[in-house]
């Protein structure tokens, strides 16, 4: 579906909202006196892969973490699959059950993997299905094994995370994310903590997920990868969207001097 850029940023009036997976409107976030997000709006439709790029401190991770309320936004609205998150005046979620329910549909993959180290890979993958989604254990195990196979860790199901490489841990974390059948996957710099030779194996898994039409928000420093898999690029600069658009435009013909400078700095 070809959309005007304004529609992509959630400014279009009267658009069909049924296929909106994530809609963020005028999001602000301050830490004390430091305003990290200064009014960000974006819309991800089903099947979109939105890559968020930007320099360190541009607010890209904060933006992602506000979407599942790991950070409490200061103001703005967030809608997930058409359901607006109820917020108090201070931006905190007003309805604990609602936010917990919404979080189960937003699977997050962290820079530092954040696997539960006292549980095996299999236990990590079945944890949320069994204890949060109340899936029968046998069913969850069956599915977890398929997912671990899929990320190439079928033979490591009984291994604890600390005995695996970073790349293996991150692939396991992706399997954990897939286990909840997420409507949107949130990737927070998934390869930034990895040794260079381990980046490829993780990107391969993410590329496959993108190819099967999963909706994703991806904060990344891998520009080549972003250009390849993303349907949209958002460039954040000091808490604002400085430039956005299809990857070929953003990377092929950057208009903003700041983006041009940024791309030069990262060696594009």
């Amino acid at each position, binding site marked *: 579906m070809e959309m005007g850029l304004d529609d992509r940023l959630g400014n279009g009036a009267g658009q069909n909202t049924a296929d909106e997976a994530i809609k963020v409107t005028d999001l602000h976030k301050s830490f004390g006196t430091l305003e990290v997000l200064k009014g960000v709006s974006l819309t991800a439709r089903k099947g979109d892969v939105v890559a968020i790029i930007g320099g360190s401190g541009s607010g890209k991770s904060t933006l992602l973490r506000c979407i*599942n309320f*790991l950070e409490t936004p200061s103001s703005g609205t967030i809608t997930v699959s058409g359901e607006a998150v109820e917020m108090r005046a201070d931006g905190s979620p007003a309805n*604990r059950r609602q936010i*917990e*329910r*919404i*979080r*189960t549909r*937003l*699977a*997050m993959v*962290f820079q*530092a*993997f*954040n*696997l*539960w*180290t*006292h*549980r*095996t890979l299999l236990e990590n993958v079945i*944890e*949320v299905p069994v*204890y*949060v989604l109340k899936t029968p254990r046998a069913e969850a195990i069956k599915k977890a094994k398929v997912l671990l196979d899929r990320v190439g860790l079928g033979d490591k199901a009984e291994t*604890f*995370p*600390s*005995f695996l490489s970073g790349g293996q841990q991150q692939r396991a974390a992706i399997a954990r994310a897939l286990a*909840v059948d997420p409507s949107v996957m949130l990737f927070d710099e998934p390869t930034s903590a990895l040794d260079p030779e381990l980046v490829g194996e993780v990107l391969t898994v993410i590329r496959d997920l993108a190819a099967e039409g999963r909706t994703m928000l991806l904060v990344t420093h891998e520009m080549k990868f972003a250009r390849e898999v993303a349907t949209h690029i958002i460039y954040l600069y000091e808490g604002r969207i400085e430039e956005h658009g299809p990857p070929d435009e953003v990377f092929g013909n950057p208009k903003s001097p700041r983006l041009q400078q940024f791309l030069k700095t990262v060696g594009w």
Partner: protein
Amino acid sequence: MELLSLSPPGWGGNLLRGLVNSLQIALGAFGLGLVIGLFGAYGKLYGGVVIRDLLGIYTTVIRAVPELVLILILYYVGTDLINQASEAMGYGRVEISGVVAGIWVLGVVQGAYSTEVLRGAIQAVPKGQIEAARAYGMPAFLVMRRVTIPAMMSFAVPGLANLWLIATKDTALLAIVGFSELTLETKQAAASTRAYFTFFLAAGALYLIVTLLSGVVFARIEKWARRGQPSLRAGQSR
């Protein structure tokens, strides 16, 4: 040796009864201490200003006053308060079971130390693991049960093992309020027979056995709690 035989005229039976009482109190006090400690640690870490201040006073006062003094205070004040309450409600004076009083008194003391042990252990859990649990929609209690507590166990077990051993030996302090735990039983047996050396040696051996067995149990618990963590010794896995 016949002084130690289990049936009269031997005093072995008395000593063992004292030991059972001691262990009962130690277990109860340790358990109560853990419950207080868990709430205390969470209160100190996540509670509001009032809760944090109250818990600060609790842990400071309890850890500042000698345990013997605390036992005297808590025991007499506690029983006094209960009796006053009972009389005020029109019941007569109540007989307070020594075991319950002992558990209450030592449990309150243990709770203060547990609070600090568990608070440290919770803080040692990598933040990302708790964040991951929240990000996947776990409610706070489930996060605590499935992630924080299991993950903090490896940090908490050595400190808790200390507390348990202290609990077993603190029971001896209850002799001062006339509770028939191992030490008081030993003293009575020794005084009646004049065989001080025999009986106190026997009591010492019993305390030692408790400590050794506890060591075995805690080694197992620690091994379980540390599952998934590489050994610090080179060349060993699990």
